[in-house]
């Protein structure tokens, strides 16, 4: 849609498509506000986004390059008005470093191709030699294209305004047949009884070429978070019916790193019962403590004396053995030893209350990555008439001199659009307005590895790993290992996210942990070596480090902005998304104090269509986005991915594990006995 088609009046203009902004957009649109939602990037969700592997490479290039400096162009404003320029530069991502350890040897690829070809051609009668030749040609052409992508400057070009469109191009050109084969090869590998476990040698090595070729199977999150099953995000998804737009899986294991080993944390009743590492007395002590935490407010006598002491001191008095204290502090409460007793108890309680709602751990993970969630809210906003423009920004705000309020904005095309409220992501705010803002940093690492950190019967495990400081003074690191059935990485690989609050650059903070838990090949493509104890540790195939600015703790008053401009801070370092949701609700309350926050979306059959507007004739509620809404890139993309997933699903690739429908769960009817 050309920009001059945009209406010139909106109730709310929202700049940035991160989680908080998207929730606000959905909430406003749901209650009938006219919402314009814009983002200068070519993708949804800002720093909350998930990328395909190739998309991430483009993103990396974008942040490695120094962008054009802020130009202070004089904007045309009317009398009695003044212009307040926004920043056109995103400075929230720093210290981006990429390391590739996977080999790029082409013969590896060919081996895969042969296998793939065999699998593919065994389905029709006999492979005739002609077909064989044809296939090889197809393969080599696609390899060429990927190499083109590898060359840095090509990518930089692609990160131009049309990056989104170009992103899928190379693969789009590969005839669908080639894709089919690829899929089948993967299936074959999955179906064969775990070659990795029985004989590690013949395990097919995953090359960089293959990762790039399978790049669309990756959905790599910029922020790594899980959803507490009774957290505010899940509650909101249920309440607003937005949950219907996404699918979720249970996190299957809570692990921790202790005494140089990764081990499972017993947290549910079944875990404790089944644990082989705990003695029966430890089991009792742990259960007793956890049961107490579940309703600790009812037993003030147990902890009152420790209200001024730290949680750690409190644990010491509870006759808990050393490993139990480790589990509780690092993996269940997930707090530092020095937090106060009540805070530690509350964190433990939250964890325990989330247990068992959807599974044996307290957490859910959205299929296709966390970046889906802001998009789900955007979709909700669009369904109720919100208008979306990507690759479009706001150059400056138009302030009324008298009231000091923002009355309009001038967008990146120079169009003036009036609004009553303006919501903006922190990253768009210029230096002048954020002088007093004191921000922190998050250190992030993304690894693609070749096997799980703790192999088990099932290859499809989603694990949360808590890593206490590996050396005194180093940070507590949180690690999430995702398997391919989460639709975030290609089969045969694992996607590992590491997160901590920064004390230095991301690599300084996280590389020590990576080197302890993983094998980093000295030369690319080197076979993973036997670990010291003879157990094989996962090899890193590819690694990315970066820092992200964390303004979550910043108070609104620190920004020098008009009162009807609302700031959404960047993602925080916490495991849950509660901060972003609470912030969204608070902003919505300021915007529309009288209105309900995200009431349930009505069922399609309860909607009365006027018959006048084009949407009245629409085939149905789900598909009938209001006519003005842009067919957004993100939605097209996710639809494609959905199809892809369905294809994969048919051939048995995905979904051996069931997905979780997030809805108000009723207790099972008790029967018998």
């Amino acid at each position, binding site marked *: 849609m050309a920009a001059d088609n945009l209406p010139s009046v909106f109730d709310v203009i929202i700049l940035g498509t991160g989680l908080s902004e998207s929730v606000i957009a959905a909430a406003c649109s749901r209650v009938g506000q006219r919402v314009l939602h814009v983002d200068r990037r070519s993708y949804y969700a800002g720093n909350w986004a998930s990328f395909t592997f190739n998309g991430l490479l483009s993103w990396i290039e974008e942040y490695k390059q120094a962008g054009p400096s802020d130009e202070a162009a004089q904007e045309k404003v009317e009398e009695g008005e003044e212009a307040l320029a926004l920043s056109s530069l995103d400075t929230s991502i720093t210290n981006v470093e990429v390391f590739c350890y996977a080999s790029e040897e082409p013969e590896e690829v060919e081996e895969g191709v042969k296998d793939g070809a065999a699998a593919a051609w065994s389905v029709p009668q006999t492979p005739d030699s002609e077909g064989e030749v044809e296939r090889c040609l197809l393969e080599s052409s696609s390899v060429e294209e990927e190499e083109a992508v590898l060359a840095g400057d090509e990518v930089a070009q692609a990160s131009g305004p049309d990056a989104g469109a170009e992103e899928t191009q190379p693969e789009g050109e590969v005839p669908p047949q080639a894709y089919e084969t690829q899929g089948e090869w993967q299936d074959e590998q999955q179906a064969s009884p775990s070659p990795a476990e029985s004989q590690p040698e013949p395990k097919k090595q995953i090359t960089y070429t293959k990762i790039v070729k399978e790049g669309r199977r990756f959905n790599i999150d910029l922020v790594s978070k899980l959803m507490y099953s009774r957290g505010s995000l899940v509650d909101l998804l249920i309440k607003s019916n937005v949950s219907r737009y996404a699918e979720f899986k249970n996190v299957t294991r809570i692990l921790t790193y202790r005494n140089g080993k990764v081990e499972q944390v017993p947290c549910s009743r079944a875990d404790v019962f089944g644990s082989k590492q705990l003695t029966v007395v430890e089991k009792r002590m742990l259960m007793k403590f956890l049961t107490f935490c579940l309703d600790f407010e009812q037993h003030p006598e147990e902890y009152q004396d420790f209200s001024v002491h730290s949680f750690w001191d409190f644990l010491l008095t509870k006759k808990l053995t050393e490993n139990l204290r480790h589990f509780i502090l690092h993996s269940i409460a997930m707090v530092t030893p020095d937090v106060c007793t009540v805070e530690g108890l509350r964190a433990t309680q939250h964890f325990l209350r989330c247990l068992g709602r959807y599974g044996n751990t307290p957490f859910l993970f959205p299929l296709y990555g966390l970046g889906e969630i802001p998009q789900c809210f955007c979709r909700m906003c669009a369904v109720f008439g919100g208008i979306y423009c990507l690759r479009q920004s706001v150059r400056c705000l138009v302030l009324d001199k008298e009231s000091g309020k923002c009355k309009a904005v001038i967008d990146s095309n120079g169009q003036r659009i009036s609004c009553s409220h303006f919501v903006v992501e922190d990253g768009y705010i210029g230096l002048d307005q954020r002088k007093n803002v004191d921000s922190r940093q998050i250190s992030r690492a993304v690894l693609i590895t070749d096997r799980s950190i703790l192999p088990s019967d099932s290859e499809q495990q989603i694990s949360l790993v808590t890593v206490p400081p590996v050396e005194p003074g180093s940070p507590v690191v949180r690690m999430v290992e995702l398997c391919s059935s989460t639709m975030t990485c290609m089969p045969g690989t694992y996607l590992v996210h590491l997160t901590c609050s920064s004390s230095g650059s991301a690599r300084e903070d996280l590389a020590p942990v990576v080197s302890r838990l993983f094998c980093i090949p000295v030369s690319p493509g080197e076979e993973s070596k036997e670990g010291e104890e003879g157990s094989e540790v996962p090899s890193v195939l590819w690694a990315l480090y970066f820092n992200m600015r964390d303004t979550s703790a910043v108070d609104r008053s620190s920004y020098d902005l008009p009162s009807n401009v609302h700031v959404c801070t960047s993602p925080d370092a916490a495991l849950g998304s509660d901060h972003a949701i609470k912030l969204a609700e608070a902003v919505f309350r300021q915007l529309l104090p009288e209105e309900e926050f995200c009431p349930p979306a009505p069922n399609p059959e309860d909607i*009365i269509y006027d018959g006048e507007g084009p949407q009245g004739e629409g085939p149905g509620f789900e598909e009938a986005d209001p006519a003005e809404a842009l067919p957004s890139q993100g939605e097209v993309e996710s639809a494609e991915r959905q199809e892809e997933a369905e294809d994969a699903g048919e051939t048995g690739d995905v979904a051996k594990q069931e997905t979780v429908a997030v809805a108000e769960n009723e207790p099972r009817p008790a029967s018998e006995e």
Partner: protein
Amino acid sequence: QHGRVKLKSTAQQEEEKRKEREKKLKIYVTARDAVFAKRKNGMLDDEALLLTQQLLSSNPDVATLWNYRREILLHLETIREEVDVQKMYEDELSFLESCLKVNPKSYGSWHHRGWVSARLPRPDWTRELGLCDRCLSLDDRNFHCWDYRRMVVKMSGVPVDQELQFTDRLIGSNFSNYSSWHYRSTLLPLLHPESPDHSHRVCEEQLLKEYELVQNAFFTDPNDQSAWFYYRWLLGRGMYCYVVPPLPCLTVMCPYFPGRSVSWCRDSATDQELFRSELSVEKTSVLQSELQSCNQLLELEPQNKWCLLTIILLMRALDPLGYERETLSHFQTLKEVDPMRGAYYGDLCSKFMIENTILKMEYAEVRVFSLSDKNLTTLCHLDQLLLVTHINLSSNQLLRLPPQFAMLQCLEVLEADNNAIENLEGLYHLPKLEDVSLKNNKLSRLSDLQPLASCPKLTRLDLRRNPVTQLVNIESELAELLPSVTDLLL
């Protein structure tokens, strides 16, 4: 307001729903009437099958419809080829699956499925086991499914050890499940049949494993009774206690012919064998270590009733006399932490105290027996006391002398002061009873004393501090009721 989605009002929605419901009901009733008419006319055809299917898929709990369906199927079976019969029953199974989705606890559907599976020419038991697993993973306590599964296992001959693994899996995911534990208790004896020569080597190995499993359960959650019940069963396999062997000499009993002289003798069974079987050395050590673990748990959970009760039972099995004091104090705690079941604990404790007194009884003392001041709430094992001539039950909490008391045919003197006795049923036809002391009890009506009239030799009766003594004319009434009593204290 601009952009706001227009919604139907609640009244509109409800009206629509009501109409929808009415329409459905009409269809349902019509179909039902059609089915009943067809059945009346004895029509066993495909159309009836289709109609009942429609009805049952919306309400699978009409037994009449299932019965009709079975009649039809049985009829069709006789007129169709085997291939078609197989197909017919397979269709029936998939229809049943959809019924179970509507109501996974429908009696009718599960019963019908069992029937169909049994009639299927070539049953696919693996599929049926899979179905059960799916149902149990949704609700591990669905007893319809458990029942059906038992049938499937029996019909398809699933090996016992595989079934044991199945219970392992269910218990692993949630050990609060009686069905699984109970199933285990039926599988283990099949897997390890005990040889008659008491060499329990295999069984003991398995038992140790089971002890470990169940300990994990009750240490994890000591308030979950399913594990404790299973533990009791396991311990029972280790100790066979509380079995009183019958005494061969006591065959003739004629309390209803007063005046006839009857001689009683007692078998000289050693007291040790009376209330428990001899434990092998291995078993004793196993039980001893179980007692240790339970004591360990009790230290952590001093208020846990299951633990206390299990400890008491273990102590009984190991050394009833040696642990008497501890047993009593545990009973005391039990009554405090679980007052709802105080009377049960009182009775159980009385039983144990009487057993202990009998065990302690020297052969010489066999005729004089004292159970005074033991907090007894009930009397039992009276069959062990047939030769007793003097019994002292004073200072307990007895409410009555039960009918079994009449077994004490040799009894001459009864002391039962300071109880709360209000009923003397058991003092009936005791040929030798001469002296009865019932000071400070709760006897309040003259009719309560009626049984005493059947004791011919009763001469002395002490009823002081009983409400009955306050009645007017009590003395003369008693003289009339009990003419043989010469020494009456009121």
